[in-house]
């Protein structure tokens, strides 16, 4: 009896905690999604927009660059005045020293991104470093890892904020080889049905699926009889391990393991297993 009472009491306590944890706002922290850039069509306005997104998103700049005094509030202060003043600062010894104009500002911003300690705005240095060391992480290394194009976009955004037309180069094709669509929010919605996943990754372009009658890749009918789940999975993510008779290696992209979500992979496997003979 005592035992039951104690257990019920403990359970009740536990449930109260659990209930509370479920009451607060629920947010899942997904790993950062790579921004896809359409290199063919992105213009400077697009770069500025992308830069703004990166500034509060992947770049995590607003964590510190806000009005709470941790770092210069880049969105609050008058950048048109600030940038030239800093380049002209006596203690500034960086790449843009002695220069003026929009290009100098681009160089200054870029330098601050990859080497923040090159010049520290007075009062914002690491404690005890006498404003010689910046607390800011380098934007191009882990954990932030902005690419060259992305840093250009951030620079373009800040130049735009300062009232200058951005001078950064537009991305060229080889800088962003994996670029696909522009609307990455649409693109990254995970597929929820097998057919949707097949469509999303263009499987039917090469395989005879959904009545496409394509014959670049092998027919997949009756797959469930021939292969186990694991084998099907392997054939999708490592297509060159086993090559079907009469087909060549390196025809199918081998980066689906990177592109697909785990749920999508499973959907595709389920879908393929259900194909009639």
């Amino acid at each position: 009896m005592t035992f039951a009472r104690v257990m019920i009491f403990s359970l009740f306590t536990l449930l109260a905690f659990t209930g509370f944890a479920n009451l607060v706002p629920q947010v899942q922290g997904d790993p950062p999604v790579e921004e896809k850039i359409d290199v063919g069509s992105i213009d400077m306005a697009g770069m500025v927009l992308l830069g703004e997104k990166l500034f509060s998103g992947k770049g995590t700049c607003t964590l510190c660059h806000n009005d709470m005094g941790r770092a210069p509030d880049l969105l609050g202060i008058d950048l048109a005045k600030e940038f030239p003043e800093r380049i002209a600062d006596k203690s500034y010894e960086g790449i843009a020293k002695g220069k003026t104009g929009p290009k100098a500002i681009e160089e200054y911003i870029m330098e601050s991104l990859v080497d923040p300690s090159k010049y520290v705005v007075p009062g914002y240095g690491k404690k005890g470093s006498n404003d010689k060391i910046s607390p800011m992480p380098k934007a191009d290394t882990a954990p932030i890892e902005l690419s060259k194009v992305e840093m250009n976009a951030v620079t373009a955004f800040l130049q735009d904020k300062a009232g200058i037309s951005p001078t950064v180069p537009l991305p060229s094709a080889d800088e962003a080889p994996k670029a696909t669509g522009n609307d990455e929010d649409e693109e990254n919605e995970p597929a929820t049905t097998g057919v949707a996943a097949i469509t999303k990754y263009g499987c039917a372009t090469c395989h005879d699926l959904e009545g496409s009658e394509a014959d670049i890749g092998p027919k997949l009918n009756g797959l469930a009889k021939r292969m186990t789940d694991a084998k099907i999975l392997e054939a999708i993510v490592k297509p060159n391990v086993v090559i079907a008779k009469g087909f060549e290696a390196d025809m199918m992209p081998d980066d689906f393991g990177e592109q697909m979500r785990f749920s999508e992979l499973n959907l595709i496997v389920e879908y393929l297993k259900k194909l009639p003979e």
Partner: protein
Amino acid sequence: MALNHTSKLFALFILAVFVLVPDVAFAAADAAKEAGEALVGAPKPTRADYPMIGGLNARTLAWGFAQMHLFLAAFVLAVPMFSIVMEYIGHLTKDERYDSMAHEFMKITMSAYSLTALFGGTLALTLFLFYPHLMGYLMKVFRGQFLIYALLFLLESVTLYIYYYSWNALRYGNRKWFHMSIGLVLNTVGLSLMFIANAWATFMMSPSGVDPATGAVIGTVWEATRNPLWNPVNLHRFIANIAYGGAIVGGYAAYMFLAEKRAEVKAHYDWMGYTSNFIAIAGFLPLPFAGYWLMAEIYAYSQQMGITAMGGILAWLFIIQAVLIGTIMLAANYYLWCGLMRTDRGAQYAKYVKYIAVVIVGGFLVWVTPHSLILTTDEIRLLGGTHHKFLGPLGIMPAKNTAVNLMLVFTFLSLQMFYRSSRVPTVSWAKAGNMVIIALYIIGCTNIVFAGLYGYITPTVYKVGASVPQVVSTLSIIVFSVIIDIFMLRGAKSEKVHWGRMSERSQYALFVLPVAFTWLMGLMGYIRSSLRTHWHVYTVMKDQSPDAYIPTIGQAGNTITVITLSFMAIMVFVFWLSRLGSTSQVKPS
């Protein structure tokens, strides 16, 4: 005989050499590597490289086993720590009760020990099975240390068994000292085990001894061990273990108290519950300070990681943590207040209880009020998902710091009142001394409030700094009161304590403690792991598994509840086992 001893020592020495050999050999290999070959970086597995076994969720499995292992290990490591202190007190005061109680604590530990090892093994297996790349990399970084760990584990088993089973054989006089020495070795080995395991966990958060760009191993094992967060976590876990162990044996004592009918046995378990609660509070009071240090070191290591912890998604976690800590404090205080009734003198203090209750509940409310937390779910989405735009809760940290410090001070006041309730000072300056202590409380609390105000109006960068005087104020109050009390209560008349004169209801406070502690530990484990975000080893090895996301607090809470329930089930089994051991069947006539 002497020769026998020497040969044993020699054997130990040889063993030690062997323990060290793997490390030495690997160090030599490093030197060779430096001479020529290119260094190999951290592995970069793709999503497909993560083994999938029968649709099991790898992360949930690893999470569950790790947390279970941690719960059990924390308990098994903690109990010998305060057992040996109690043994020593018993030896000093010649009071056999302490010795018997320490023995009884150890009895519970023994049943839990093999389960700890079992879960540790299962955890290791799970990790190697589901995260072979990560484990391979960690093996490369820590090399021979894994073997040392295994050997220490062996040594832990040996000393634990000897310590427990030699208890009655080595009970009095010089033999007692010998027994306590064994306990000391046991605790040293146990702490070393924990420190080593902490090094692995903290390396994953703040890697050192590796090339930051590639993750290639360039340093020694010691450099990887001595990473920035190692010592803060060591201290935090060490203190928390003591509080946790105390809370668990407190639950045991409370259950025994409720289940018993005989008055003298009830008195024994009342005393045991009181002592356990004392240990739990004593461990709990300094814990927030160790937490401050850990958080400060996290900020110093990486601003980004610090803000991930204190802002945005995880910010709500600290509200939940506050509720848990508040619950623990209220329960512990409630138990102390009930305890005042054990002495006739205690009743005269009872009238102050309501004021303390007001401060503690008030502090609790300030702490949990989320009004200045600006982030709602939609706002976070709007601000860019995983990343946090505002330092939200930091802005109100001063208010919360003030609340928690005042709560700590008043919890200590409860403890002090309780302590005083069974002792009547006889020194001539008793009245003056009391006034000095009252003044200390008044000024100390005022200082805490003022430092809070100062922190509130200074820019963010100074806020953390302003909390330091608050912490020191709290510590000052505690330390100075204890010192004054020691002198004032010298030769004090002891009041008769009626052990067992406790309400049934008071015992439930002792159940709240272990349940809340266990759940809170689970929650803190979740946040510690979440700080790495989508990295296995922060900034060095990315987590590409399907589970590379931070689960919502609700999901995490549900998982932690399931784990806590399993742990409770196991503890019930453990307690049952230890009671079974002392039950004997009556011989049929």
